[in-house]
């Protein structure tokens, strides 16, 4: 409501601002500056430079009973950090704000000294003149020799930014409370130990005194007490009293309220541990004490000594150090915690705030955040998510994946976005590398990233650009109707994986080569696959090998899966299979058999030109059976017969291609390449072995910064950066070819920021390969650094690469060429504009991150848009739906030309990830894009 204060400023007509007036104007000291940064050099960052210390630090101070407030230590313990800042003065300042009423005294009604277990107090204060502000955590420790048995301490987080302390108050408070609890737990233990020792001393003293008294009594025959005897008796009484007092103190410290000790997560482990130790060496006189009290038992190896009954306060004695007060183990742990705090809150507030907001928002995006988020963070979040899911299931949450919910494997293959298989074929295979290998590979890469490496490749003179080059026509579109009919009649094979198959995996993983694939490619129809084979065939690959320009036979691979119970007739019955519909996600509904694009391979539809037009099918890990669907055209019947008949079943498993190697060599001379085969053996060695890894947290930020910097240089210096980035975003493997490992690695690292991830582990990036590539490499890696060796042996490498060049993009660093499909979208230019004025790599990394987040949102929308993924009505054809989807991508998401492919690819990854049983362990797809490539030159 408008009230008088609202309008008081306007009640005078003639002044709004200071104007000539009879009365003196408002002195500036009573006014408010018109501009926030009125003073010279002031700006939003300047407050950080006003202080005498270079960055935030932690100070521990004590209010010493001997010398008053004094600083004890700083974290980090580096004089450069606090510079000329007066620690003594600041200690005085922060310790003078003492609210702690913790004292030991004789409260009314109590005969003995009483310990007060006061809670810590927290104060934020500052010295505005010095530009120093502090979060101060006050705590009290017990010391038997101290005045009142207490020693007041404080831990202060000192920063030049007051807003930072206030905005992070709760976080600071929580972290310092942990450190405080740790100190206090250790202190209670030490204090109890001290009391025990004192009690032993007193007990011993009492015994000695008692003996002496007795001797005196016996010696005394005069009938009255001598003054010496009276003195002894008084001393004895004093000792007795002291014993009772100390016993009471011990009892008090042992009965420390358990609720208070619960506060410390940090120390709980330690407490248990020490309890155990205490149990073993327990010397307590009261075995009925609880486990908590065991903590305070001291070790038995102590020899009691004679002490004076009344301790005299001596001010020249040396007080215990903090470490002595708290037990070394606890003290060390506290220092570790404080170092953690210092590290945790380091830096500008805006980055702290944003990272907290980031984490909070990313928690809600477990469906998409695997794509481009840092995998370590994602990993953490997954753990959190799992905890959340297990603790409170909610209808509102996206349902977790379960067999029951997604019972039909067709769903997984429902890459409806790839309407035209002329252009792309997916092959799902067993993931070769385990998760650990992924991690190791990534870590190895991080470690191998040498900041000192120069950027020679970026200095190369790159002028001009020739964006048009040779165009490779789409091959293999000629299909014979006879083959088609065979294909149509082909049945799916569904078998569980046999243990034998699993055992042989390792072998196949090491030695698989493209040659073996070609063997498979010659198995075009059911007629060629004996039932025996079907029974143990875990996957299927249909490849129409047509490289080297022969017009015959693009090879189409289709792999699909089905649950174990689905037999060869499954496809027919799929429509009737009741499927649990995922209520939140249209994918589950797509799994219903009625959905065209996700129909099993038996419904594979061919275009007029004879290519497969149904979407490529993918594979689901949890399903134990597989559909095998060969649709290989134009392979000669004789060669098919030769290649397939008589093969043991496992040889048809793409994971066991080694076993078929020899056969493939002999049977597929027309197609296979022995050189590449030889090379493929070599590929089993070095590049598969992860180098020694030393995970380093701090390397992550540096890594991002350098990756951003190199990416920035790349887009500025390579005119064909856009199609290269498009390849990465759309899932087409990009091979970076070059002689110099350092240069190749740098570029691969730089480009890796554009590579979508499969799961929550390391990105599908291989930084350096020196042996020939084979087909599984394209399955695993979407960005590969490949060595070009100027030796005869390298011919195999290049040859192997050329074999797959139709399916991959190749960036030749030495010749400065790029061979990849055309890109005409608008997305990448915004992501990677060579005219950008962004100066730093870290800033560019942030820009890329925000743009990719936008992209993820689009992919999420596209993936989970019910009306888009489900048929509008029962009779809607695939084509209609596809056109609806295309129209949506264009009109609603504003994606033009190739940009749509990017979103479609991401959507495909989202679907796979969402439907996998355990996210992150999924299987990359091997996808061949039969799209024309262009050669770009500088």
């Amino acid at each position, binding site marked *: 409501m408008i009230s008088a204060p609202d309008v008081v*400023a306007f009640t005078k007509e003639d002044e709004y601002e200071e104007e000539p007036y009879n009365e003196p104007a408002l002195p500036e000291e009573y006014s408010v500056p018109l501009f926030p940064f009125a003073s010279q050099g002031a700006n939003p960052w300047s407050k950080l430079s006003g202080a005498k210390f270079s960055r935030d630090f932690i100070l521990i101070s004590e209010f010493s009973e001997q010398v008053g407030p004094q600083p004890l230590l700083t974290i980090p313990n580096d004089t450069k950090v606090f510079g000329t800042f007066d620690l003594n003065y600041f200690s005085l300042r922060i310790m003078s704000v003492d609210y702690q009423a913790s004292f030991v005294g004789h409260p009314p009604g109590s005969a003995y000294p009483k310990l007060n277990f006061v809670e810590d107090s927290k104060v934020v204060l500052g010295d505005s003149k010095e530009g120093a502000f502090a979060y101060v955590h006050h705590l009290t420790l017990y010391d038997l020799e101290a005045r009142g048995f207490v020693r007041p301490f404080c831990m202060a987080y000192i920063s030049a930014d007051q807003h930072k302390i206030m905005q992070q108050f709760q976080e600071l408070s929580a972290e310092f409370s942990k450190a405080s609890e740790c100190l206090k737990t250790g202190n209670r233990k030490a204090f109890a130990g001290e009391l025990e020792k004192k009690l032993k001393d007193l007990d011993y003293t009492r015994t000695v005194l008692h003996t002496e008294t007795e001797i005196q009594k016996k010696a005394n025959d005069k009938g009255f007490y001598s003054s010496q005897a009276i003195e002894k008796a008084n001393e004895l009484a004093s000792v007795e009293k002291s014993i009772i007092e100390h016993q009471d103190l011990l009892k008090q410290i042992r009965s420390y309220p358990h609720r208070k000790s619960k506060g410390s997560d940090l120390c709980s482990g330690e407490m248990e541990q020490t309890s155990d130790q205490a149990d073993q060496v327990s010397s307590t006189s009261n075995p009925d004490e609880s486990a908590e009290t065991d903590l305070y038992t001291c070790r038995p190896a102590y020899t009691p000594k004679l002490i004076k009954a009344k301790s005299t306060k001596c001010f020249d004695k040396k007080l215990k150090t903090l470490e002595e007060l708290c037990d070394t183990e606890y003290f060390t742990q506290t220092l570790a915690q404080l170092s953690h705090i210092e590290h945790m809150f380091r830096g500008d507030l805006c980055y702290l705030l944003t990272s907290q907001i980031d984490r909070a928002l990313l928690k809600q995006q477990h469906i998409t955040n695997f794509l481009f988020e840092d995998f370590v963070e994602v990993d953490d979040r997954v753990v959190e998510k799992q905890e959340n899911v297990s603790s409170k299931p909610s209808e509102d949450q996206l349902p977790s994946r379960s067999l029951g919910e997604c019972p039909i494997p067709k769903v997984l293959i429902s890459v409806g976005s790839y309407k035209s298989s002329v252009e792309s074929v997916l092959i799902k295979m067993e993931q070769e590398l385990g998760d650990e290998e992924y991690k190791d590979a990534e870590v190895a890469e991080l470690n191998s990233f040498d900041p000192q490496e120069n950027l020679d490749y970026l200095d190369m003179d790159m002028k001009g650009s020739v964006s048009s080059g040779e165009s490779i026509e789409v091959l293999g579109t000629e299909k014979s109707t006879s083959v088609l009919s065979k294909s149509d009649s082909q049945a799916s094979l569904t078998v569980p994986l046999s243990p034998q198959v699993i055992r042989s995996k390792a072998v196949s993983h090491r030695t698989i080569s493209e040659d073996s694939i070609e063997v498979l490619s010659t198995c075009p129809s059911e007629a060629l696959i004996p039932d025996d084979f079907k029974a143990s065939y875990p996957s299927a690959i249909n490849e129409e090998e047509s490289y080297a320009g022969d017009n015959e036979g693009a090879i189409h691979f289709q792999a699909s899966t089905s649950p174990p119970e689905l037999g060869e007739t499954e496809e027919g019955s799929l429509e009737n299979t009741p499927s649990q519909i995922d209520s939140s996600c249209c994918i589950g509904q797509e799994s219903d058999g009625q959905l065209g694009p996700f129909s099993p391979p038996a419904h594979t539809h061919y275009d007029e030109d004879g290519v497969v037009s149904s979407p490529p099918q993918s594979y689901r890990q949890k399903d134990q059976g597989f559909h095998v669907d060969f649709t290989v055209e134009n392979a000669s019947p004789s060669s098919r017969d030769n290649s397939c008949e008589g093969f043991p079943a496992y040889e048809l498993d793409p994971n066991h291609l080694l076993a078929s190697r020899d056969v493939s060599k002999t049977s597929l001379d027309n197609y296979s390449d022995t050189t590449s085969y030889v090379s493929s053996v070599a590929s089993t060695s070095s590049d598969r072995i992860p180098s020694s890894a030393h995970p380093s947290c701090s390397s992550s930020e540096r890594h991002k910064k350098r990756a951003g910097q190199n990416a920035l240089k790349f887009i500025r210096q390579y005119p064909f950066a856009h199609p290269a980035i498009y390849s990465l975003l759309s899932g087409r493997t990009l091979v970076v070819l070059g002689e110099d490992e350092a240069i190749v690695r740098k570029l691969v690292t730089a480009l890796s920021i554009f590579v979508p991830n499969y799961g929550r582990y390391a990105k599908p990036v291989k930084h350096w390969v020196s042996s020939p590539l084979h087909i599984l490499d394209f399955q695993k890696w979407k960005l590969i650094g490949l060595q070009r060796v100027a030796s005869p042996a390298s011919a195999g490498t290049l040859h192997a690469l050329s074999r797959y060049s139709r399916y991959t993009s190749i960036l030749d660093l030495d010749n400065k060429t790029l061979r990849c499909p055309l890109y005409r979208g608008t997305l990448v230019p915004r992501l990677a504009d060579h005219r950008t004025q962004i100066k730093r790599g870290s800033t560019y990394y942030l820009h890329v991150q925000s743009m990719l987040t936008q992209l993820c949102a689009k992919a999420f929308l596209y993936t989970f848009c019910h009306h888009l993924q489900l048929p509008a009505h029962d009779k809607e054809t695939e084509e209609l739906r596809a056109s609806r989807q295309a129209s949506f991508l264009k009109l609603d998401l504003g994606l033009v030309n190739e940009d749509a492919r990017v979103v479609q690819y991401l959507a495909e990854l989202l679907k796979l990830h969402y439907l996998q049983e355990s996210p992150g362990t999924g299987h990359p797809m091997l996808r061949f894009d039969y799209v024309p490539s262009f050669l770009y030159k500088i």
Partner: protein
Amino acid sequence: MSTLCPPPSPAVAKTEIALSGESPLLAATFAYWDNILGPRVRHIWAPKTEQVLLSDGEITFLANHTLNGEILRNAESGAIDVKFFVLSEKGVIIVSLIFDGNWNGDRSTYGLSIILPQTELSFYLPLHRVCVDRLTHIIRKGRIWMHKERQESVQKIVLEGTERMEDQGQSIIPMLTGEVIPVMELLSSMKSHSVPEEIDIADTVLNDDDIGDSCHEGFLLNAISSHLQTCGCSVVVGSSAEKVNKDSTGSFVLPFRQVMYAPYPTTHIDVDVNTVKQMPPCHEHIYNQRRYMRSELTAFWRATSEEDMAQDTIIYTDESFTPDLNIFQDVLHRDTLVKAFLDQVFHLKPGLSLRSTFLAQFLLVLHRKALTLIKYIEDDTQKGKKPFKSLRNLKIDLDLTAEGDLNIIMALAEKIKPGLHSFIFGRPFYTSVQERDVLMTF
């Protein structure tokens, strides 16, 4: 100083304030550092409640301690320092503003504090900045008051030849009372009417089947866009909300002063007539705010009598005064970010978590863009050492060419990095504002 003070007694003067709703505040106190007796409490304000949570003695104890250590105070002249206490042992939190004042010829240290129960810590922390800003402004007035009172005192001594010390040192309390009450009311209303921390999307228009279900598309777009452009601050007006009901004259009345004092500009959304108005962007708002404050302080400085200075009287002397609320303008700048979001979000099925996820993605994009923008400016200006000159490049480089998009991201960046607007736009605006006296439209 000591001669001016009331006798050291636990019976500190106290004013009880009747508030309409629940008060999270236990008390407000005004204390000073007595050069002989140390910290002393001058006055206590407490909400009138049936249940006394904190006795006067306890309040006095706590308030005394807000000045602990201030004998060591090391501050620039005129500085107002903030101290914040969380005293678990007492179960309270205290916010203290410490300042030097020259009262009745003695320069001393004072503390204006508010005390809340510790259970309100989470409630209070987000409001800390607002509270400190409001209390700071009270102190500015208080210091002027002290200065003027000293002058009058000197004049009286000269004219009447007598010292009437017993009259001095008392009259600041009514002025402070007039200022403390709105702060208490502010906290009270925040307690009862603040936006819940977690909002269920099912309770919002985003749960509708279609964007047109609850409101007009353009209105929703304008409202959200403007809300984001004004740093997430809005006043939503509707006939169903009691707090913003029409007054007797039939016109809407805004909490004008609170809107002006707010750290960020505000969007005015009328859900009855579907209008959206917004205050100028941050830097302009801060400029207006400071001019407003300076005017208020100047008026206070020039007030010739206590009656002029006691603001209650203004109400009666100038009832007909109605400020022109043209500080709210139409939303001029269109954005693409919110528009795309609204165009897209309704494609997702409601009632599931899909829209929440999509919303979180949208917010994440905004935050990441804001951080990128801060970093961009930081790089370009070498952390403020150089002026920022390349706004055009920034817009292109960060894909913020739509003016509305830039405003939204800048507003978000302002919250993360306070002062960004003033740093970038402050000076040019100063020139333009000299040409057009914006505030004359009041």
